[in-house]
């Protein structure tokens, strides 16, 4: 019958369409999952390397402690170096009137701020920065001094109350990504009495507009001191800034007054509050907690005594018990190394550790509290620790930042801990989203995610993944080449038949042993080495299309490799010694530092050619080394690069 046949034909047709749709959907989901996994791998690589660098930073601070502790011995052996290193800079006083003397020429067409500041100044800055203008040092210093005065009046923890009509917005790490701040202000509104904000630390480093972010945040704070709250992060620390780029940014943008700006910033960091507490229920701090976190103590300490979270307080006499009043402490500052007045200018070790925990810790699924071996500071805290501490102080939730998350936020510990991270594309364009949270008492937090791009439309996911992935692999390969000698040694130890091949397991073990990055080596092997048809790895194949450029051909590769590997640390050391920021150190100083460095880092390398290396590279020919130029000459070449240099950043 007519009707019956046509309806059954229709059924058959739609059944076929259904099956077809299912096939496509199934395939797509498989494909999409593969892309997401590749993104995860890439992020893990970035994160592991980032944290390994943070550990390197801690190692560096140990080196400085080592130098300070050996002060007296150094004095006997190398008095000239020591005099230079420990030259107490007399101009330590904050010359508040210094900035008034700076002249702003008529030709300056950047933004001019009017004190006392109003909300129009916030707009003015935003518009100016969108046009990539630079705020004149005069205004920068004015803002900094006013900010410092105001911050000094703030307690360690700001207590805030919200209401259903007055939500507060909490933002995480910005790391110099100005576009993200623009977006947040644009989408969520400028701060005001009815639109309060908390910025939870790490405003600076890594991105290229840390200065502009600070200016916008500080001006916002000056206009709305009761509604714009700033918490200190682990990057609000001059030692971190030396490694992660902010110091360079300031010195580059402010060639004349950069040093002064850095000095004032060093102090301002110490006056930033430690955290905020919302409605007596939510604790907002940058990193996390430990099992011994004592909020009452943290409310009481003199937070401004913590100069750098990486410089633990050390008395100069070490174990010797002398009269309490006469103990002299030594610290490192942006101005070099100098002696403090007395120990009362530092925190106690216990107090210092409490603050480190707040700024550096990370939550993990495993119960208990363990040292944070990934970063080298703070701890890993489990859900039981969270419950214990929250209950102890009758709090309900912890909001923190400090870790990059693919979605910009992450919830863990049964909803008691939220991580919010506001720098989208943190590692690479397409690597992650950013997020912010809006909170008010009685309602659950609302999450807003975003991803900034300067293109007219987002590239398709697979293209973005390709870019992120190849960048991560590149960084990993550069890591490998910087430890080539050690890696080959371990490979060869296991390759008893000298075949040049290892099993996947042996190779993965060796890689983890030397590099210590806790990465899924087996999954990554296809990107890093070639495998033969039996599944064995040709371990030398990683090093075939990549090498470290030799600034001087005749010098041994191992020495080149060592300088390359430690270039970030060396740069910081040189920066600290070069207290007048001339960019130069003498050959003498270089040799002494290298000697100390070698002994502390237990570096075994034949450096008989070190002099030859520096002399051949030094174009000044006046006995001084431009160390930035020197270190830049050590870089990795990827054979199949279109560019001739890789964009390895030196601090």
């Amino acid at each position, binding site marked *: 019958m007519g009707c019956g046949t046509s309806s059954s034909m229709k059924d058959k047709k739609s059944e*076929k*369409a*259904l*099956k*077809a*749709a*299912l*096939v*496509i*959907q*199934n*395939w*797509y*989901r*498989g*494909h*999409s*999952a*593969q892309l*997401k*996994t590749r993104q995860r791998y890439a992020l893990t690589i970035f994160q592991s390397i980032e944290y390994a660098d943070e550990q390197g930073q801690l190692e560096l601070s140990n080196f400085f402690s080592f130098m300070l502790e050996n002060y007296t011995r150094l004095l006997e052996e190398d008095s000239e170096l020591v005099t230079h290193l420990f030259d107490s800079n007399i101009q330590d006083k904050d010359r508040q009137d210094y900035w008034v003397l700076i002249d702003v020429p008529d030709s300056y067409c950047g933004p001019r701020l009017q004190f006392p500041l109003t909300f129009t100044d916030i707009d003015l800055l935003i*518009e100016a920065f*969108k*046009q*990539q203008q630079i705020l004149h040092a005069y205004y920068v210093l004015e803002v900094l001094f006013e900010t410092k005065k105001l911050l000094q009046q703030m307690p360690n923890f700001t207590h805030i109350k919200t209401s259903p009509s007055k939500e507060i917005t909490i933002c995480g790490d910005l790391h110099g990504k100005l*576009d993200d701040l*623009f*977006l947040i202000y*644009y*989408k969520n509104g400028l701060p005001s009495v009815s639109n309060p904000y908390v910025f939870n630390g790490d405003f600076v480093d890594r991105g290229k507009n840390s200065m502009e972010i600070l200016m916008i945040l500080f001006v916002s704070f000056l206009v709305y001191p009761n509604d714009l709250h700033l918490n200190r992060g682990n990057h609000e620390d001059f030692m971190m800034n030396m490694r992660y780029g902010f110091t360079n940014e300031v010195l580059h943008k402010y060639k004349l007054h950069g040093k002064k700006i850095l000095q004032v910033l060093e102090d301002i960091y110490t006056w930033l509050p430690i955290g905020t507490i919302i409605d007596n*229920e*939510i604790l907002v701090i940058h990193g996390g907690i430990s099992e011994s976190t004592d909020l009452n103590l943290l409310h009481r300490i003199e937070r401004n005594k913590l100069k750098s979270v990486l410089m633990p307080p050390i008395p100069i006499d070490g174990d010797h018990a002398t009269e309490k009043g006469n103990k002299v402490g030594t610290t490192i500052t942006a101005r070099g190394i100098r002696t403090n007045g007395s120990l009362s200018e530092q925190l106690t070790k216990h107090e210092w550790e409490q603050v480190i925990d707040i700024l550096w810790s990370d939550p993990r699924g495993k119960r208990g509290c363990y040292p944070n071996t990934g970063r080298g500071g703070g701890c890993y805290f489990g859900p039981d620790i969270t419950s214990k501490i929250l209950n102890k102080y009758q709090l*309900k939730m912890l909001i923190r930042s400090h870790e990059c998350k693919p*979605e910009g936020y992450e*919830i863990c510990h*049964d*909803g008691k801990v939220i991580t919010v991270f506001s720098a989208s594309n943190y590692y690479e364009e397409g690597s992650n989203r950013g997020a912010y949270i809006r909170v008010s008492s*009685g*309602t*659950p*937090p*609302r*999450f*807003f*995610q*975003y*991803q*900034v*791009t*300067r*293109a*007219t*439309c*987002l*590239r*398709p*996911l*697979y*293209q973005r993944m*390709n870019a992120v992935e190849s960048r991560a692999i590149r960084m990993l390969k550069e890591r490998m080449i910087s430890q080539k000698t050690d890696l080959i040694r371990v490979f060869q130890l296991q390759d008893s038949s000298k075949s040049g091949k290892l099993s996947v397991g042996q190779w993965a073990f060796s890689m983890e042993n030397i590099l210590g990055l806790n990465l899924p080596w087996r999954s990554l092997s296809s990107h890093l080495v070639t495998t033969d048809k039996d599944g064995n790895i040709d371990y030398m194949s990683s090093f075939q299309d990549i090498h470290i450029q030799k600034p001087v051909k005749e010098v041994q590769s191992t020495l080149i490799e060592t300088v390359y590997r430690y270039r970030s640390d060396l740069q910081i050391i040189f920066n600290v010694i070069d207290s007048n920021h001339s960019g130069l150190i003498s050959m003498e100083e270089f040799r002494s530092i290298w000697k100390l460095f070698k002994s502390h880092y237990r570096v075994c390398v034949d450096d008989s050619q070190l002099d030859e290396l520096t002399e051949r590279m030094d174009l000044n020919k006046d006995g001084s080394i431009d160390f930035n130029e020197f270190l830049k000459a050590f870089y990795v070449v990827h054979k199949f690069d279109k560019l001739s240099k890789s964009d390895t950043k030196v601090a």
Partner: protein
Amino acid sequence: MLYWDPKADAVFRKNKEKEDHCTTEMPRPEGGGSIAFLCARFSRRDPDHSFQSPGAQTKREIGTIIRSLGCCPSEGELHDLIAEVEEEEPTGYIRFEKFLPVMTEVLLERRYRPIPEDILHRAFEVLDPAKRGFLSKEELIKYMTEVGERFSQEEMEEMLSAAIDPESNSIHYKDYITMMVVDEN
């Protein structure tokens, strides 16, 4: 008293839109200037998965893991698989010790094999009976979001961003498949 009441929260969420995607363009600064305009894709994600049932997020992640291992279960098959490995009392977590033997068996039995390229191509052809060689954007959206194991809005947008030819607003499926397969390798 809890910080907020999960039951009230559930009702609250049911009545609200779960996802709110929009593309925002920031206006150019006055007087031109050298900044390119910024685009941002915004999505407000109520954490319905993570607060109320932490399990839902874990389930999505397990799906990603299984698929990244080369298996292609349908959503229904995935659901059954997860039921097999999750805890009796849903804590929201899946224990590795339970997951490993099940997953090993799946891999050894070569279950949930991925779709071969020619089958995928034929599936597109079924949806294109006139054999034009392409599907219009509307047709693809209709099939993917209304039929079978339907796509979410985000999945649809993601697929379109790679598949669509902006000039003709259509999907030339043969080229699309070739591009995706090359990328996978």
